[in-house]
C-alpha cells in the first residue's frame, strides 16, 4: 500500500481538526445529541489514523509524538509548517 503523501496527511489532519472543533461547539450546547456525537467520533477516528500514519512516515507532528527511541526526531525537519521541502 502506498503511503499517503505528507501534504495529503497534513491537510487531512487540518480539515479533521476543523470539523472536530466546529462539532465541539455544537456539542457544547447539545451534549446528548447522538448524531453530533457520532459525527465527532467519526472524524476523531479519521484524525487519529491520519496522525498515526503521518508520524510513522514523516516523523513527529509535535513533541508528544516522541517514539521513545534514541533520537529526538523533532529536529529532523522539515517541520510540519514547512509545506514544501526546499
Amino acid at each position, binding site marked *: 500500500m502506498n503511503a499517503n503523501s505528507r501534504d495529503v496527511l497534513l491537510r487531512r489532519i*487540518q480539515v479533521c481538526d*476543523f470539523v472536530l472543533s466546529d462539532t465541539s461547539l455544537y456539542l457544547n450546547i447539545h451534549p446528548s445529541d447522538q448524531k453530533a456525537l457520532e459525527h465527532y467520533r467519526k472524524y476523531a477516528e479519521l484524525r487519529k489514523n491520519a496522525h498515526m500514519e503521518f508520524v510513522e512516515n514523516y516523523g513527529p507532528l509535535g513533541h508528544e509524538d516522541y517514539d521513545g527511541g534514541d533520537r529526538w526526531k523533532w529536529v529532523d525537519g522539515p517541520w510540519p509548517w514547512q509545506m514544501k521541502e526546499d
Partner: protein
Amino acid sequence: MEYKKNNMYQMADQYKKNGWRRVDIANDFNYEQTAELPSAATEVEVPQLEVDMTVEERAVEMLSEEPGEMECGYCITPAMSYTPMQKWNSTYEPEIGFTRGTIFPELDLPFLGEEACEE
C-alpha cells in the same frame, strides 16, 4: 397608547438627530414607517416576563434609556436578540466546510456587515 407612540417617534427623531442608528437583527426597523415591532421578532417565542406591559410599551421604555457609550465615542443602543436553538441537520463535506469556515450549511450566511456607528 397614542401618547406612547408619539413619545416613541420623538425619541427616534432625537436619536437620528444625534447620528444614532438603531440596528435590529430581526429586520430593518424603520422609526418613521411604523411603531410596530418587525414581523420576524413577533414570530419567535418571547419569554413571558412578569411585567404588565405590552411589547410596544417595553420598546418605548427601552428607547428612553440612555444608549451605551462606545469606546469610539459614538453611542448606539444595546441589542437584544431571540434566536432559536440550532438543530443537527446535514453537514458539509469536511473539505467544503473547511473552506466555508463552518460545517453547518444553515450557518453559512453572507456577511453583510455594516459598521454599527459611523466612522
